């Protein structure tokens, strides 16, 4: 196990810079999530770390050593692929043993380690099956066992849950996270799903167009986004961002409340026209527009249904809403976060 660092990594495919200068430090044992829209260069970045792709420029350090020219097998990094990349002609047992065989580990030791990995992931009973005889969730565990069996310096996961259905995904999220904490392996986890990122990451690096926009703990990313991109990408529904005074003003839907619900603090008032509302059981999402701002921009409010009755919120009505001043976020006209006003 080791720390992974990158220094200004650039990868160009012809003209296109898929990775455009990423510098990232992942300390030993950390669960780092790379979060970004699809096509932003996440997979390319992972492939550079494990050595499947050579960077155009920049340095990669594993355990403090520069490994730019070290071939994949000598880096000791394990990767789990989006579609798992299991060997279809091998049994599960043989799949898990393969990384050990390539390193000429003695047979008895291989058996011991395969048994260990299989037990860790609860797949003992599947060892003699072929990958095609497994369900999606089982395949994912086999791939994880294969990645871990040789005790890698770092574990790279490329959208590992994207092939699972929604129910299984919530369960697998939990499982991967607990498992990583138990083994303590340095992990870089790639996803475009902000729920996964928020729920799993020790820290999150938000990536856009091959560049890191912000690195921080989930609460830092959520509460203090570094720029408009991060603010709009993280959170569902995303932060409301409106133009004001040559800059931008942002507030999260759950902080945008009827004025009479805010009593204890300084606040800023808005007149809000309700266009549509969705009742989701635990919350009510209301869509509308603000008076004095772009009338076409949709503003969302996330309200607790207990406080806001049906008949109170009808399409076409104007209401007085407000945001606590502490929940307002200010951005410059270039999108960067402005230091607190």
């Amino acid at each position, binding site marked *: 196990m080791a720390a992974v660092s990158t220094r200004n990594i650039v990868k160009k495919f012809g003209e296109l810079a898929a990775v455009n200068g990423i510098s990232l430090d992942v300390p030993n044992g950390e669960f780092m999530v790379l979060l970004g829209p699809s096509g932003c260069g996440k997979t390319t970045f992972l*492939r550079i770390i494990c050595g499947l792709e050579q960077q155009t420029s920049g340095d990669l350090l594993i355990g403090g050593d520069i490994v730019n020219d070290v071939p994949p*097998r000598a880096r000791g990094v394990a990767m789990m692929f989006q579609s798992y990349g299991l060997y279809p002609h091998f049994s599960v047992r043989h799949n898990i043993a393969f990384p050990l065989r390539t390193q000429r580990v003695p047979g008895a030791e291989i058996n011991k380690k395969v048994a260990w990995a299989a037990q860790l992931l609860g797949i003992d009973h599947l060892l003699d099956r072929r990958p095609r005889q497994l369900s999606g969730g089982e395949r994912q565990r086999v791939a994880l066992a*294969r990645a871990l069996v040789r005790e890698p310096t770092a574990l790279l996961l490329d959208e590992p849950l994207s092939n699972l259905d929604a129910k299984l995904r919530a369960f697998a999220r939990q499982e991967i996270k607990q498992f990583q904490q138990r083994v303590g392996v340095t992990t870089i986890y790639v996803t475009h799903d902000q729920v996964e990122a928020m729920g799993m990451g020790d820290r999150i690096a938000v990536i856009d167009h091959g560049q890191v926009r912000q690195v921080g703990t989930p609460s830092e990313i959520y509460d203090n986004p570094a720029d408009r991109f991060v603010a709009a990408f993280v959170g569902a529904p995303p932060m409301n961002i409106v133009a004001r005074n040559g800059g931008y003003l942002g507030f999260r839907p759950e902080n945008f409340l009827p004025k009479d619900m805010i009593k204890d603090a300084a606040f800023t008032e808005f007149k809000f026209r309700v266009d549509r509302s969705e009742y989701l059981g635990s919350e009510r999402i209301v869509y509308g527009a603000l008076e004095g701002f772009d009338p076409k921009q949709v503003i969302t409010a996330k309200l607790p249904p207990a406080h806001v009755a049906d008949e109170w919120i009808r399409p076409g009505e104007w209401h007085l809403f407000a945001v606590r001043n502490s929940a307002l976020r200010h951005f410059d006209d270039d999108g960067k976060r402005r230091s607190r006003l």
Partner: protein
Amino acid sequence: MVAIADSVPKPTARFRFILDRRDVFGSLMVAPAILYVLLLVGVPLLMAVYYSLSAYTIYNPSWRFVGLSNFIDIVNNPVFRQTLYNTFIFTFGSQILGLVLGKFGALLLLRPFPGRKLVRALIILPWAVPIALATVAWEWMFDSLYSVINWTLIALGIVTRSNAPNWLGTPHLAMLCVIVVNAWRFFPFAIVIFLAGITAIPQDVLDAATIDGAGFWRRNYQIIMPMILPIVAVGLIFGFVFTFTDLSIVFLMTMGGPVGATSVLGFAGFQTGINSGDVSHGAAISLFMLPVLLVVVVAMLRFIRRREI
């Protein structure tokens, strides 16, 4: 009353939609193929079986039944045993050589290089050129006097004019020549098979193998080869069947010579049955292909099916 009368289907209605019935239409569509196989494969096969059990020659076209005596004759003939042996050498030799060439050709063609598309197109040429023309060209290359190969060997100082190999005049070399020409003819097919197989392997699997520490050879022999084995086996069946029954290269280049060293079953059957007019013995020789091909095809298909489970 009226209703009952109306519900009786009129003949026109019954026949107008007959082509919409799956069973009728289906049988109609496969009928030509079945007819073709029955007339052009089934009937000649039955005739061959009958000829081989009779004393039929074109000089004395009698249908007299003689049992297995034709088969006993040819099995006791050392020339036939040599032919049978040659056929196996010819088939296995050219299949193995073709597979090796195909594998390496495919590996080379998978790497990007300038002009790859052109080379991919040109590689099909041995297949596209009529076999008669190609064989004649090869014959000149192996000719005892005009051999380009010998000129090159002499120019390189590897052999002298006096001890230059007589390619088609020496038994073992002549066999080597027909094998080389047949492999040359088949290797584009092998390349296509390998390319199809290799490009169908998901990139994730190959990348996983690289990350798991497999080098070039391990990736090739433990991941790629086993994964493309079913499709290669199908290619091998075809190659085996076509080569085992082939007579064109031998016929055009060596006429089975020197002294029967390159005679193969198809050629011997043709020589005995058609050229010499001994139809019954020719049929018996040809029928020797049947059990061999049957065993090979059944074995291969079984193997493929087992791999797929």
